C-alpha cells in the first residue's frame, strides 16, 4: 500500500462540525499516510481557547493529540494568526508549527493528495 503525502487544509472556522470531521479524517489517514493538517484563514481559531460544548459541537482535542501521536504534523499560518490578533495558542500538549505563507505553499506543492475544508 502506497504511503502518501497528504495535506488537509482547514480554512473554515472551527465553530461548527467541519473542523471536527476534518480532524477525525486526518487521524484515520495518519495511520497509513504522512499527514499534515494546515490551518489557514478563520481556520486558525481552531488552535485558540474556545468552548465547543457551548455551540453543541464535540471537542476535537483528542483528535489533535491522536494526530500528533501518529506522526501527523499540525501547522498554522503565521500571517492568518497576525491578521486576527491571535498571539497565544491553546496548549494541546503537542507540537504546533507556526509557518509563514511561503513555507506553507511549499508543503502544499509537495503534497500528493490535498483535501480542503
Amino acid at each position, binding site marked *: 500500500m502506497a504511503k502518501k503525502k497528504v495535506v488537509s487544509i482547514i480554512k473554515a472556522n472551527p465553530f461548527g462540525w467541519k473542523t471536527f470531521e476534518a480532524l477525525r479524517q486526518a487521524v484515520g489517514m495518519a495511520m497509513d499516510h504522512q499527514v499534515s493538517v494546515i490551518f489557514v484563514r478563520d481556520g486558525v481559531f481552531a488552535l485558540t481557547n474556545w*468552548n465547543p460544548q457551548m455551540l453543541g459541537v464535540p471537542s476535537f482535542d483528542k483528535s489533535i493529540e491522536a494526530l500528533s501521536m501518529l506522526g501527523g504534523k499540525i501547522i498554522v499560518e503565521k500571517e492568518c494568526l497576525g491578521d486576527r490578533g491571535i498571539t497565544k495558542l491553546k496548549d494541546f500538549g503537542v507540537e504546533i508549527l507556526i509557518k509563514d505563507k511561503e513555507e506553507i505553499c511549499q508543503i502544499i506543492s509537495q503534497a500528493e493528495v490535498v483535501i480542503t475544508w
Partner: protein
Amino acid sequence: MVDTVYLIKKPAEFPIADLISDNDVMILIQDAVLRQPSISNWYACKEDVIARGLKISENRLLDYEDILNLIEKANKVIVW
C-alpha cells in the same frame, strides 16, 4: 421603541445599509461576532461570543433571553 431587530449571522454581512434606521437594533449572532461592525447601534449574542473565546465589552452583550425581550417589544425581527 424598537422598530426592527436585525439578527446578523455572518461576518460583514450587513443588510442594505439604507434599511437600518435609528429605531432599529443590530444583534450579531453565530459567526457574525467574529468581526465588529463600524456602526454604533449594535449588540452581540453573549453565548456566541464566549463560546468563540472572543472579548467584546460587557455592555454590548445580550443573552438569549435579553434578545427575546427585545424581539417581543420590537415590531418585527429580520434575520440577515
